[in-house]
């Protein structure tokens, strides 16, 4: 176990370095932030002074090494636009984004399990068909557009819920719900097909033959074995949820990392973009590691490999 953790740790550092290098290289194509900051006014000398102050006059290699050196001390530079440390700007926004993402994934898991089980145990029945065709529509709608329709229905027409910004639970329902919908559609199909698979296994037949109650067979024997792979896939979906949250945050004016990064990309705010890329990849790596570890706990075969 310890060896496994060590290996993962060093792999993570490698991924980190790769991400930072790729982002750094790509940003060189993005445009000149000094030009953007100066605008039409400002003399040539001002421009040179600003370039020196930002360290952008040095060769790329030096800039990257300097960046890494500072990054190790947790310093990723000052945001060009906000004038505060870029890293703290990103970290400030983590709770808002995680609140959104975690609520969305919880909603989709909690709803998908009973719906998938019902669909599988009543295969071909009315509920099964409703869930299946509903989930098809769920994955067929543009996710951001679902959010807009939510705003229209629950915010504008019915006036039940606030449609923008972050606050209490009421503010969370629409954005988290619209973010959850696509995942819910996907998860229902996963649980359903997993259950159908397991229900066809011989040990389920033998459990039934023993005369166990159907509910015991479904929940104790079948569902338990469906959930292991399902939880893994759900965990890995966290990554794409983080990406999806960028769009949701834009629609609902949610003050998370997604909105910050969209703004920063447009303003060529390098330090913020770099910090965001590193923070996001850190979250990714952490999630993958947690999924791996939890998997090795549930499934002993993984440990021996």
């Amino acid at each position, binding site marked *: 176990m310890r060896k496994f953790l060590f290996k993962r740790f060093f792999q993570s550092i490698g991924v980190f370095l790769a991400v930072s290098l790729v*982002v750094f290289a*790509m*940003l060189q*194509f*993005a445009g000149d932030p000094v030009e953007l900051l100066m605008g039409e006014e400002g003399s040539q000398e001002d421009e040179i002074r600003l370039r020196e102050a930002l360290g952008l006059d040095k060769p790329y290699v030096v800039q990257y090494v300097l960046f890494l050196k500072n990054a190790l001390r947790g310093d990723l530079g000052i945001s060009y636009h906000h004038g505060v440390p870029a890293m703290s700007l990103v970290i400030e926004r983590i709770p808002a984004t995680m609140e959104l993402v975690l609520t969305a994934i919880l909603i989709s898991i909690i709803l998908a399990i009973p719906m998938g089980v019902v669909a599988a145990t009543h*295969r071909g029945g009315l509920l099964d068909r409703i869930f299946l065709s509903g989930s*098809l*529509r769920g*994955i*067929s*709608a*543009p*996710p*951001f*557009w679902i959010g*807009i*329709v939510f*705003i*229209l229905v629950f915010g*504008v027409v019915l006036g039940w819920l606030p449609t923008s910004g972050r606050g209490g639970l009421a503010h969370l329902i629409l954005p988290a719900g619209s973010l959850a919908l696509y995942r819910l559609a996907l998860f229902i199909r996963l649980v359903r*097909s997993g259950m*159908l698979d397991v229900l066809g296994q011989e040990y389920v037949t033998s459990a039934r033959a023993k005369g166990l109650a159907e509910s015991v067979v479904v929940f104790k024997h079948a569902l338990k074995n469906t959930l292991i792979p399902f939880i893994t896939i759900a965990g890995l979906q966290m*990554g*794409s949820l*983080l*990406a*999806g949250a*960028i*769009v949701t945050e*834009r*629609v609902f004016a949610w003050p998370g990392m997604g909105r910050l*990064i*969209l703004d920063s*990309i*447009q303003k060529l705010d390098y330090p913020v973009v770099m910090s965001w*890329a590193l923070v*996001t990849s850190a979250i990714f790596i952490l999630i*993958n590691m947690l999924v791996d570890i939890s998997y090795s706990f549930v499934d002993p075969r993984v440990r021996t490999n």
Partner: protein
Amino acid sequence: MTKEAIQAPQQKAADIAPPPRARSTLALLSRPDALVSLGVILAAILIATFAPLIAPHNPNQHNLNEALKAPFFMKDTLPGYWLGTDGLGRDLLSYIFYGFRISLTVGIFSIIIATVLGVSLGIWAGYQGGRVDTALMRLADFQLSLPLVLVALAVIAIFGPGVGKLILLIGLVRWTVYGRTVRGSVLATKELDFVEAARAAGARPWEIIVRHILPGVLTPILIISAVELPRVMLLESTLSFLGLGVPPTVPSLGGAIAHGYGFLLSGYWWLTVLPGLALMIVVIAINLLGDWLRDVFDPRMQN
């Protein structure tokens, strides 16, 4: 042992079943949803292809005097403008027609790039094996672990929006799905007796690939494409909604939804709802047809 015994009669049944083409025609006629889907898709393709001919107006023509007119089923309409006009007085119907053009162009061309790239690299990896195989599959693993929206966002943000760039980017990212499948079937086919026989008879590698391996991967490619096309279309609309897809001067469904979103709170809900609805109908149709394709060509996957 038991498995083979069970499978044998199924294979016999497949032998006496009608040939694939007849089977698929029969299946299509017995599934009204697939027929309707096919109709919707054909209509969308026709609209996209002939948008300049059938669109009632120029989608980029501003007319502020006639802005924010309602669609035909409401009051305050403008004759000749079936779905009304947007905040700049552009005809919404024509805008949606041209939006389809972009959606389908991006979808179809990026999938062609992904297919060509995926099939060639998949065959290369599977046929060559060894280090090439390992390197290509590692690359595929890495690419698949990154969410497409995130990659697209980063690249488009840095290189700027553009239809060609978007197509190339999606093609370069999505080859992995095709590459893995093709590699798998190459590995499975490579060692089969008839391929060995062809090789022993002196067939060149490319002959073996074209004659014996490619026909086997056509069906999975078709099925994968039916899943990928709607995904790519939704991605395009998402990026265009964020202003990071196609340039703002090009009419796109995502751009129309974003524009309409600005007027949602003023009560002009149709400006944002209708373009999204139009996209959703086509995407549902493609997904339904994809489900049907899978049922027909790959009965093992049924439900």
